[in-house]
């Protein structure tokens, strides 16, 4: 049920966010009285969809009371008054209304007026338009890694690495816990006593780990397809509102359309820089063996537990390395070639998350191969140890198990 429901819920949540965001914007029509005559063009391009409109009045000087009559008798929610402006001391701009002006709208007006004042002040100092554009330019560094020119920024590598690491982290925690819970249930229900007369304990444990892993993977893929599908359908039904929301975000964030264009280009070229085959094949490897490494630990713990009250104390030693890996991931994203990142990508407790985070940054092949080898051997070793614990743990009833006792079981 949850497999179907979750993407739908995410879609509903997205729609709710869009609705709230678009409806959060005040529906205002503001009359603009600009005695300076400098902002006409600016205000003509400041409307945000249907929710914020500016009506530019004639620029003949009139008293405030007269202006208030105009806005009150007209269909306006407020009056924005701009006197003749001294660029050295731009004061006197006021908003008249019966209702408070929302912070988003206020920021929108202030930002646009500030921009225009700055531009005109520079022009007054004989800076031409091209020179003014120059002040807004940002610098990017050209990267040549291993004699190969990189076109995009490292932001995309960071985002991608982070996303992959996050997916593995979620999968390990969620499905590892599922393995543990399932085994504990079979133990407390005594089903395992019947099952082990039919199959070997090792077969039972591996079957459970692989089965739940396969279910998890199917669920994940299903969610990805459904979530992408719903997000592709959203613009079809809510296109106008999404555009209005984007327009609001852009008016608040972007000072320069050329900056927006540059960012889009960076994203596009950044994606081209990623070695997709290496990335995807590595992801599959770390996904599978990371899961096997941790799921076998969860299986061992599940076999040792007598009831759910043991869960916290028993799972703590397993979850700590995973949580540390998440913290280390942030460090790795900033410094993918630091010693912390290197060792994090070698130790099997953290390598599924850390190495996959590093790979978009072009980690040397030998490091990756070494990490994969260590994880592979460690997974097999962990399965072997877990099987020993599982074999005894699932049939042990009635007494509280300690870690010391679990340690002994490994050598039985």
């Amino acid at each position, binding site marked *: 049920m949850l497999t179907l429901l979750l993407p739908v819920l995410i879609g509903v949540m997205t729609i709710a966010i869009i609705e709230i965001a678009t409806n959060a914007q005040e529906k205002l029509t503001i009359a603009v009285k600009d005695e300076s005559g400098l902002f006409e063009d600016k205000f003509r391009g400041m409307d945000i969809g249907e929710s914020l409109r500016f009506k530019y009045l004639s620029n003949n000087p009139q008293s405030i009371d007269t202006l208030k009559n105009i806005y009150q008798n007209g269909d306006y929610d407020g009056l924005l008054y701009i006197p003749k402006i001294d660029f050295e001391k731009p004061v006197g701009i006021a908003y008249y209304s019966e209702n408070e002006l929302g912070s988003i709208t206020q920021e929108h007006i202030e930002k646009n007026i500030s921009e225009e004042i700055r531009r005109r002040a520079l022009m007054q100092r004989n800076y031409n338009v091209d020179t003014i554009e120059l002040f807004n330019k940002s610098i990017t560094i050209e990267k040549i890694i291993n004699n190969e020119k990189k076109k995009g920024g490292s932001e995309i590598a960071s985002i991608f690495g982070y996303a992959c690491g996050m997916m593995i982290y979620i999968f390990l925690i969620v499905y590892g816990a599922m393995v543990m819970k399932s085994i504990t249930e079979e133990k407390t*229900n*005594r*089903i*395992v*006593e*019947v*099952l*082990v*007369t*039919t*199959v*070997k304990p090792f077969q039972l444990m591996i079957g459970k780990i692989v089965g739940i892993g396969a279910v998890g993977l199917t669920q994940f893929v299903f969610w990805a397809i459904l979530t992408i599908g719903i997000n592709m359908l959203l613009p079809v039904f809510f296109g106008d509102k999404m555009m209005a929301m984007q327009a609001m975000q852009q008016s608040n964030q972007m000072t320069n359309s050329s900056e927006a264009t540059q960012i889009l280009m960076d994203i596009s070229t950044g994606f081209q820089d990623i070695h997709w085959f290496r990335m995807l094949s590595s992801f599959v490897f770390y996904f599978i063996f990371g899961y096997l490494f941790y799921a076998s630990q969860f299986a061992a713990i599940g076999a040792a537990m007598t009831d759910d009250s043991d869960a916290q104390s028993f799972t703590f030693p397993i979850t700590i390395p995973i949580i540390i890996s998440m913290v280390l991931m942030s460090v790795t994203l900033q410094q993918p070639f630091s010693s912390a990142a290197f060792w994090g990508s070698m130790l099997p407790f953290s390598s599924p998350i850390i190495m996959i985070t590093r790979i978009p940054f072009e980690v040397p092949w030998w490091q990756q191969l070494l990490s994969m080898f260590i994880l592979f051997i460690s997974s097999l070793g962990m399965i072997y140890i877990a099987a020993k614990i599982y074999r005894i743990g699932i*049939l042990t009833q009635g007494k509280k198990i300690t870690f010391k006792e679990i340690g002994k079981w490994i050598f039985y």
Partner: protein
Amino acid sequence: MQDVSLSLEKNKIYGLLGPNGAGKTTLIRNITQIFFPDSGQIFFNGEKLSEKHQNQIGYMPEERGLYKKMKVGEQLMYFSRLRNFTKKEAEQKIDFWLNKLDIQNWRNKTIEELSKGMQQKVQFVATVLHEPTLLILDEPFSGLDPINAEIIKNEIFELHQKGTTIIFSTHRMENVEEICEDIFLINNGKIILEGNVQNIKQQYKKHLIQVNVNNDIVLNESIHAQTDVIKEDNKQLIFKLKEEQKANDILRILLQNNIEITGMMEILPSINEIFIQTVNNNTTA
């Protein structure tokens, strides 16, 4: 377990008895290959016990071994498929047993929807579905009302008639007397008593004779002098045979004294009494 050595003949019903913690479940787990002995060997049909014999053994544990949230039909199908039956074969066997025990209506119910007794019946079906040659039942009547207990008992007898060897572990001694031919009594990991139920009862008998009489009588001095009277009331007399004395001697003495007798029988100890006596003696020793 310590130096446990026993031999089971085919097509017999054995009772496996013992106090709590005696080692019954450990012994069963060795036979079902859940555990492996530190020393010694187990043979099945003349062959060393191995994986290939798993499908010839059926084990019903004392605690319910079923998935609570799974439907009855699905669960039985799962257990059948674990035993390498094809889906079609499994369906036929499931249909057969559900009809036999008249529980077809439960096929689509989850285990947690059923009462304890109903779950026990399902558990029984899961155990015998693959027609094992050796059946191990641990408290199979637990939670069953008398009617359903009778049904399961009849199924056990039927399986026995078809050639199944049965090991029956229970604390209910009345079931042992009714069902088992031979018993093994385990205490502290050792077998302290084994053999045919009737032979064991004979072995432990206290030479008591019960005589039922027609009227409330008072035995005269002559009878008292010749016999050892244990009980004398409510139209029932109990005598302990003296050395060399036989039941016929008691009969003769009573008839000579014109006692009207309606019935006579030898009192054999119950398995319950033998169990308690033997375990206590063993523990004291």
